[in-house]
């Protein structure tokens, strides 16, 4: 009775899953790596391999650094200053003379280094209602207050992490839209998958590697999809929700802007936090004292905690205020419980009210995706969930190819050949690109100008190379056989992963015996061990792929028996 409906749902599942599956692979795999982004940063930037630090003293350490060493970003100045500046009111203020308007500092329980920055005011803006800031940022060693080199690329938090939500495709924010479409397709694929998969409970634990590839790939596809169904659903869903109000449904910036603005003004009046500068210069009171008061108030609410995020708005002005937010390391919701102080006197101006039910749900949903909490088991389980998602999509590709390749071979079609080559690119190729980037990070000389850019180039180049290799070797698929690129790239991956671990040892002296036993440093040890695990799996799979499968052996035996 549901035949037509089922056909329609199967069509959606197959084609949306296939086309956007390649993007989803990137989201799931690099999302899984992002769980340990800070740890990958430590691996890639050896001078930051020390214990995580709490927020340092603002008065004594941060403020002098920010006042003396923070400057507006050159590229942002070049790109945005001419757009924001009103040429009718005089010449453009030079970059280093822009007055500062805002400071911020942010840290988590996993950060040895502190990210800080600020916004510099454009003195003569075209549209005074806009923010009109040129931003700058620095990375600070919180133990000494030294500013660390800024061109060292944080491979984890500034490359793998953004890759999973915007594909590093900045132009017209297209990356966000493609990922959004992919996440939405994932939701659709999950729902349609459940509709298609009739024996969902009877085959809950079923994986039969001894059957033919098409069947065992489908087993694995169903199993990895079903067991982690809540993970897949909620991560795609919350990923969409996180960006919804900025990108996907920006109602507050468009259709409902008047209503939004009216409420924002009312809200600001209620909070009493000034929206604009007064234009009167006033020095700032002790921020450290405000931090102590904020901690006292959190403790009084029975939620003692550390500072996660601190901002100073309208720096040096009579209207300046300091906002101090609690680090959310012990719960799912993010930083919060903001307390705002008048900067000139240090008195509490406003305390964020308890969140309403809807906001609480939203905080929980976004928090469970962004995971600022301190829970190592859950972090590893998230990695598992992300990898299960990747396996689910990859086996979907394999199933698609296996189902069609013999038929395509008979009819001389090239469809399955192309899909298979793309699958190689997004499965082994993607991992090779990531590990290759780590190898490049250790091989390139530390004082090479623009080292981070070189690392990015290596990442793309290696990935492109794996793609070329996959297409070059794909001819056997058109004859209904296996692409040898799968096997060859497994070996390449294994070798690269071992090389990365060895190079880390040679260039920094941090070998596994040291990082695990004698001078324990789990961030680096964890990355090294994961690389070794990756190498082991790659070699094992590579060896398996060189030999005929059990099913093929049985088929040969049967044929021989018939022959005799």
């Amino acid at each position, binding site marked *: 009775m549901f035949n037509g409906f089922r056909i329609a749902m199967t069509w959606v599942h197959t084609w949306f899953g296939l086309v956007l599956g390649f993007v989803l692979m990137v989201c799931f795999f690099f999302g899984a790596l992002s769980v340990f982004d800070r740890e990958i940063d430590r691996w890639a930037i050896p001078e930051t391999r020390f214990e995580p630090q709490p927020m340092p003293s603002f008065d004594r350490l941060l403020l002098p650094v920010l006042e003396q060493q923070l400057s507006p970003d050159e590229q942002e100045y070049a790109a945005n200053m001419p757009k924001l500046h009103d040429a009718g009111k005089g010449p453009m203020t030079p970059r280093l003379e822009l007055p500062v308007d805002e400071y911020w500092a942010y840290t988590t329980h996993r950060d040895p280094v502190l990210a800080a920055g600020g916004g510099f005011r454009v003195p003569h803006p075209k549209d005074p209602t806009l923010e009109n800031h040129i931003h700058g940022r620095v990375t600070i060693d919180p133990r000494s207050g030294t500013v660390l080199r800024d061109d060292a690329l944080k491979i984890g938090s500034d490359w793998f992490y953004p890759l999973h939500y915007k594909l590093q495709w900045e132009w017209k924010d297209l990356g966000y839209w493609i990922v959004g479409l992919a996440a939405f397709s994932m939701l659709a694929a999950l729902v349609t998958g459940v509709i298609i998969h009739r024996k969902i409970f*009877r*085959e*809950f*634990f*079923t*994986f*039969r*590697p001894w059957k033919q590839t098409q069947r065992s790939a489908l087993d694995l596809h169903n*199993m*990895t999809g079903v*067991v*982690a169904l*809540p*993970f897949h659903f909620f991560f795609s869903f919350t990923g969409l929700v996180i960006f919804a109000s900025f990108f996907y449904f920006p109602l507050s910036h468009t259709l409902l802007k008047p209503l939004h603005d009216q409420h924002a003004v009312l809200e600001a009046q209620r909070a009493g936090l000034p929206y604009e500068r007064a234009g009167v210069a006033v020095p700032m009171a002790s921020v450290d004292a405000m931090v102590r008061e904020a901690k006292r108030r959190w403790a009084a609410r029975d939620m003692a905690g550390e500072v996660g995020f601190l901002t100073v708005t309208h720096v040096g002005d009579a209207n300046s205020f300091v906002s101090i937010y609690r680090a959310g390391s*012990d*719960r*799912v*919701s993010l930083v919060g419980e903001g307390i705002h102080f008048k900067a000139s006197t240090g008195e509490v101006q406003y305390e964020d009210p308890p969140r309403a039910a809807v906001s609480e749900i939203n905080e*929980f949903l976004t928090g*469970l995706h962004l995971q600022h*909490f301190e*829970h190592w*088991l*859950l972090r590893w*389980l*998230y990695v*598992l*969930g992300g990898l*299960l998602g990747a396996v689910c999509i990859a086996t979907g590709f394999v199933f698609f190819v296996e189902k069609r390749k013999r038929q395509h071979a008979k009819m001389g079609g090239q469809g399955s050949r192309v899909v298979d080559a793309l699958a190689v690119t997004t499965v082994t190729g993607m991992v090779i690109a990531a590990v290759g980037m780590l190898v490049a990070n250790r091989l390139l000389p530390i004082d090479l100008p623009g080292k981070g850019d070189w690392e990015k180039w290596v990442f793309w180049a290696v990935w492109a190379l794996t793609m070329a290799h996959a297409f070059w070797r794909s001819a056997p698929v058109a004859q209904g056989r296996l692409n040898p690129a799968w096997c060859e790239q497994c070996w390449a991956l294994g070798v690269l992963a071992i090389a990365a671990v060895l190079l880390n040892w040679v260039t920094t002296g941090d070998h596994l015996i040291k990082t695990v036993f004698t001078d324990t440093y789990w961030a680096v040890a964890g990355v090294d061990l994961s690389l070794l695990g990756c190498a082991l799996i790659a070699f094992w799979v590579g060896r398996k792929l060189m030999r005929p499968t059990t099913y093929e052996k049985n088929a040969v035996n049967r044929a021989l028996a018939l022959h005799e």
Partner: protein
Amino acid sequence: MNESLWLTAAVLFAVLGMGWLALSLRTHWQQVCPQQDLNPREGHLRASGACLLLLSAVCCFEADHPSMAVLVWVMILAMAAVVVAMTLSSHPGLLRSICPRAFIEDVHSQD
């Protein structure tokens, strides 16, 4: 330390519970016990398996803030299911050893 004990217990209960649930399914039982003369008490296995999963949830709630415990539990269930599925496909015999005698009825002994 207390926390990690609770979480370890949660993981163990989840794996055992998922294992029993798997054994309550006919196809998987046949993978584990290919002999014809042993039959599972399916209802018992299913009910006890479900109870163990609930017990695992209780352990999670003992270890963490409730909002966090929910996430940990759901993810532990996913992991346990994968562990059981992989054991079934590579070493089905191992599952035999976690199945208590009480859940098996011997067809011959009843004759």
